[in-house]
């Protein structure tokens, strides 16, 4: 049976500064309000990452739901001493969920939809096509290249943070980033003369 514990009294004044560690400790006791706050704090980051990793909103929403439910079920397994930072731990869960999802759905091939989408005269249509092409190009990158590009370029993390999150070194992240940018350039060349 799941814990139906009612939320503990909330510290109204201290909410904004309540640490992730404190929140996750309360989540481990079944505190739904702490869970909601944790999700509010990290949801946008995880959702944006999932959209870029999976390439579509439907998969991203499933992945984000799976991620946060895993957090709910497993909050008690996170240890503050010597363990990963909460955000790192959360991202690793999200990353693994997204990658598992992509592997199950790998036969999809959406490249032709974007590159061969015809000549757009309307700038809004062209912009949408560009977005779709970039999203599809991202999907074609190997998993870890995609992950570091999303984390470092889109989410603005440092290489060191990204290295911790995907379980590699800073040099490994640099190497993956360079490959990712070069591959994106190759894929997107048909769209842009300047590449």
């Amino acid at each position, binding site marked *: 049976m799941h814990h139906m514990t009612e939320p503990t009294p909330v510290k109204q004044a201290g909410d904004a500064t309540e640490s992730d560690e404190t929140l996750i400790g309360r989540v481990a006791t079944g505190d739904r309000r702490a869970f909601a706050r944790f*999700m509010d704090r990290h949801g*946008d980051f995880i959702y944006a990452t999932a959209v870029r990793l999976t390439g579509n909103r439907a998969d991203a929403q499933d992945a984000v*739901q799976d991620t946060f439910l895993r957090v709910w079920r497993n909050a008690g397994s996170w240890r503050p001493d010597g363990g*990963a930072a909460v955000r790192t731990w959360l991202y690793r869960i999200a990353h693994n969920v997204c990658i598992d999802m992509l592997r199950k759905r790998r036969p999809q091939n959406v490249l032709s939809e974007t590159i061969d989408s015809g000549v757009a005269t309307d700038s809004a249509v062209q912009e949408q096509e560009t977005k779709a092409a970039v999203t599809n190009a991202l999907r074609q990158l190997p998993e870890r290249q995609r992950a570091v590009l999303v984390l470092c370029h889109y989410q603005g993390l440092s290489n060191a943070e990204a290295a911790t999150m995907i379980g590699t070194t800073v040099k490994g992240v640099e*190497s993956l980033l360079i490959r990712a940018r*070069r591959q994106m350039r190759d894929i997107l060349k048909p769209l842009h003369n300047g590449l």
Partner: protein
Amino acid sequence: MDMKRFEYLLDLHGADFARWAPDDAALAQILVDADPAARALRQRAQALDTLLSAPEAEAMPEALKRRIMAALNDAPVAARPINDNYPARRVRMLRALSYGGMALAASVVLFALAFTAGGMNQSVTSPGSPGAGPQQMAASTQVDLFLLAMADPLFDEAEDAPALMPARTPDGAVIDLFLQSVEERYMGMTTEDL
């Protein structure tokens, strides 16, 4: 700063020098001011930056939050461990192996050279697991790491990578440096990452 290094850093950081290390940015600016080819490379990188910024970030939909909160009823809290420290454990294990002795390192180099001379397979497989087949496996042994380094055209571009040739000599210190660099760069990667 030469053009090769400039292009390497453009691919690493993008065209915005504000994202570069200050010293590199200063040298790059001098190069761009003086060399039209450098300016062209930077413009190409800017074009890619612009394209990459196309899909803007989206906020998590409130409906999704509500869906997750509703799903908590079916998701009991349980302190089941998540194996999130797996990579770190592997790094520690490899470290213990890496510096086990010069003889081992030298034999790994010879093995890797012999393997490369015979043609690099597109998959990295762990030695001792002949039935592993062609599936991608993360590099975890010294042989895996050497093979990845040798298969990687980018390895020579990295300014801080020790030269490969001296590592092939029986000079233990140089080999250790090489091992360390290769380990840092390729731990956990597969040929799919190259």
